[in-house]
C-alpha cells in the first residue's frame, strides 16, 4: 500500500490517570518521541471510557482512537480495566462488523513505568492509522472544515 506522506491523521488517546497517563508522562520525561498527531485525553480509569466518546471522536473526524489503561490486574480501582476490556472488545467487534477498519481502534495496557512502551505503541498506532488514510466510514460530513 502506498503511504501518503502528507496525510497527518488525528489520533485520540484516552489514558487512565493512574497508569497510562503517568506512562505517557514518563515517555515525555525520557524524551521518547512520538508523532504530534496523538492527543491525549485524561480519564480517571479505562472504565470511564464510554463507547459514545469513541464514536463521537470518529464522528468529529478522528482517524484512530486508542485506549490505554493499567494492565489487567493492576487497575488502581481494582477491576475497572476488566470491565473496559469487555466493553471495548464488544464495541470493536461491532465496528468491525459494520465494516469500519478494525485497525483504527486499539486497546493497549501501559503501566506508569512503561514510558517506552507508550511511545512505541503510539508510533506504531499512528503508522497504522496513517497507512489506512482518512477515516471516511464513520465521519460526520458537517464537521469537515474543508
Amino acid at each position, binding site marked *: 500500500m502506498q503511504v501518503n506522506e502528507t496525510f497527518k491523521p488525528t489520533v485520540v488517546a484516552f489514558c487512565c490517570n493512574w497508569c497510562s497517563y503517568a506512562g505517557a508522562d514518563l515517555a*515525555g520525561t525520557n524524551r521518547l518521541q512520538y508523532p*504530534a498527531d496523538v492527543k491525549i*485525553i485524561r480519564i*480517571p480509569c479505562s472504565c470511564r471510557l464510554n463507547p459514545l466518546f469513541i464514536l*463521537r471522536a470518529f464522528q*468529529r473526524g*478522528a482517524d484512530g482512537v486508542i485506549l490505554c489503561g493499567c494492565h489487567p490486574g493492576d487497575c488502581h*480501582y481494582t477491576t475497572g480495566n476488566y470491565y473496559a476490556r469487555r*466493553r471495548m472488545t464488544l464495541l470493536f467487534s461491532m465496528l468491525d462488523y459494520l465494516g469500519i477498519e478494525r485497525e483504527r481502534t486499539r486497546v493497549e495496557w501501559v503501566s506508569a513505568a512503561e514510558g517506552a512502551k507508550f511511545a512505541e505503541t503510539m508510533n506504531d498506532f499512528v503508522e497504522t492509522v496513517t497507512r489506512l488514510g482518512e477515516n471516511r466510514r464513520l465521519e460526520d460530513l458537517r464537521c469537515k472544515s474543508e
Partner: protein
Amino acid sequence: MQKIGVFVCWCGSNIAATVDVQAVSDALAREPGVVFSTNYQYMCSQAGQDMIQEKIRELGLTGVVVCSCSPRMHEATFRKACEKAGLNPYMVEIANIREQCSWIHKDKLSGTEKAVLLGKAAVAKVHLNTPLTAGESPVTKRALVIGGGIAGIQTALDIAEAGFPVDIVEKKPTIGGKMTQIDKTFPTLDCAACILTPKMVDAAQNENINILSYSEVEAVKGFVGNFTVTIRRKARFVDETKCTGCGLCTEKCPQKKVPNEFNLGLDTRRAIYIPFAQAVPKAAAIDPNYCTMLKTGKCGVCSKVCTVGAIDYQQKDELLEREYGAIVAATGFEPISMDKFDEFAYSQSPDVVTSLEFERLMNAAGPTGGTLLRPSDGTHPHTLVFVQCVGSRCDGGEKGKPYCSKICCMYTAKHAMLTREKYPDTEVYVFYIDVRTPGKNFDEFYRRAVEEYGVHYVKGMVGKVVPENGKLKVQASDLLGGQQLHIDADMVVLAAAVEPDKSARPLATMLTASMDTNDFFTEAHPKLRPVESPTAGVFLSGACQGPKDIPETVAQAGAAAAKVIGLLSKDRLTCNPCVARSDELMCNGCSACEKVCPYGAITYIDKEFRGPNRTTLLRRVAQVNPAVCQGCGACTVACPSGAMDLQGFSNAQIMAEVDAICK
C-alpha cells in the same frame, strides 16, 4: 458564559524551546469565553501564581486553564493558588504541554499546533466545569497492623506510643517474624533475640496494643478512616488466656515427629508446641495436622497434664469484625524456593543449606545448640562455600528474581566472619558477583571479614555443586585470577533471594492496594511517598514494600507509624469531590451501576416522583455515597440512560474535549 483566563508556562526552555508559547497564548485568546491569555517563564513560581491570583481578582475569572507540565505534577499547586484567590479549585484545568508535547516533539511547528489544540480542549472542558466542594467523613481512631514481625511490632509500638489503639494480626502463633530466626545482626554482631524479644514484650504489655496471633485478615471493606475488617482467629485449641506457657504439654505430647518450622525443618517438635522460648503470646498451640486427638479422637495427654485446663479440642475458628481508620501492611518476606537452582544440589545433599538455615545452625537455640555441624553426619565442617545472588539479579521469568535482594552481601559477610571467628580451622570461600555494601559501617564490616578474618572472596558465580563421597565438589571460576576452581567443600550455603510473603497478593486484592510484578506493594510515590500505598489509608512497613535490612525496616516502620498517627489525629477527612452522581430523574434503578462498583458505594432507595394526573409514582433510584466513591467512573458507562455521571470528568466534559481535539 464563563470568563476564562489562560496561562501558558514556558517552563524555562523546557516548553518554550519546542512550543511557540506566544503563539499558543495568542491562539487561545481567541477561544470563546477566554478573557485573558498570557505566557510566563515559570507559572509555578511564586510570581507566576501571584499573577494568576491577581487576574482572578482583577477580571473576576470563573475558570482558569494553565498550559504547563503534567497535571500529576502541579495540578494541586495551581488549584490551591486559585482557591486562595477565591476561585473554586475545580474550575482549574491543566493542559499538559510539557510531558505530552514539548518534550516529545522536536518540530516547533507541529509542537505549537498540538499545544494549541490541547489548550483548546482544556478551555472547552472548563466551560463545562462546575464548582465542586469536597465532602467529609469521620475517622475511626484505631489502626490495624497486618504482620507481627519487626516491622509490624515497631509500627504498632510507635502508633500506640502516640495514644492510639492498635491491633496486630499475625498468622503464626507468635509475633516476632523472621528476626526471631536470625542469630546475630550485622554490622554490630549483637544477638537478634536480645534486641527483638524486649520489643515483643513491650508490644504485649502496651495497653494500646492488642495482639491477635494465629489470625488472618479475611475481608476488608470501607475506605480511608472507615475500614471494616473481618479477622479469622484460627483455632489454636488452647485457651490463650488460661495457658501459662509452662510447656509441660509440649514435653508430654507423644507425637514427636513434627518438622519444626522455627528451625526450618532441621529438627522436630511436638504436635502441641510453643514456637520458641520467648514467644509472645507465650501460649501453646496444637497443630491440627499432626495431633492424634484431633485426627482420631484418641490421646488427650496434653489435656491431662495441663494444670490450668487450657486445652480445648472443641475450639473453632472465630471471625471478628472490627473498625479501623488506617491499615498498615507489614507482611514481610520469605526466602525463595531452591527448586529451580538444582545446579547447587540443594535437593541432593542436606549439607547444602540456605542462609536462613545456616542462621539456625549457628544459633544457640537452634537444632545443634549453636555448634556448627553438618546436617548430614553431624561432623564439623572444614571447608565452607558461600554462594551469593542465588535467584537474585536474574533475567526474571522462570530463572529467578530480577531485583537485588539487598541483604545477602551483608549477612553472607556476617556468616563468613562468624564461622572464621568460632572455628579458625575452617576455610571459608564466598563467591560473589559484586559485593554491595552501602550502609553505615557496612563496607568496613565486609573488609574486616576479608582482612582480619581471612575469608576468601572470589569474584565469580559457582557453576555447579556435585555431592560425591560425603563431600561437595564445587566447580567455580575465579574471574579475576583467571583460573577454574574445584573445591571439595563440606558445606555449601546459598544466599537465596527474598520474595514477598505469599499472603501479600491476596491481601493486596482485599485492600485494593497495588503491587508490582514481583508482588511487592507499590508505594504512592517511589521517592516522596515511600511508606504509603496508592490506596488512601493503607500504609506499608518493612520488606513487603521491597527487600530491606533491619535498620531500614525499623526506619520505615516508624515512618509508616508517623503517617498513621497523622491520619488518626484528624477528626474528619475531606473526600475527593470528583465522584459519581446519579440524576434521580433519569435513573431506571436497574442496578447495573451497583454491579460494577468496586467499592459498594451505590445503594438504592424508593423515591416518590410526580406522575401524570396528580398521581405519585414510586421509583427505585441509585444513590452514591460520596465518601466511599473513589471516582473511577465504571458506573457511568454501565448506566444506559446516562443518569450516572462523574463530577469533574462528566460525559459532556469529555465530549467537549473530544470535539475540541478532533476539529
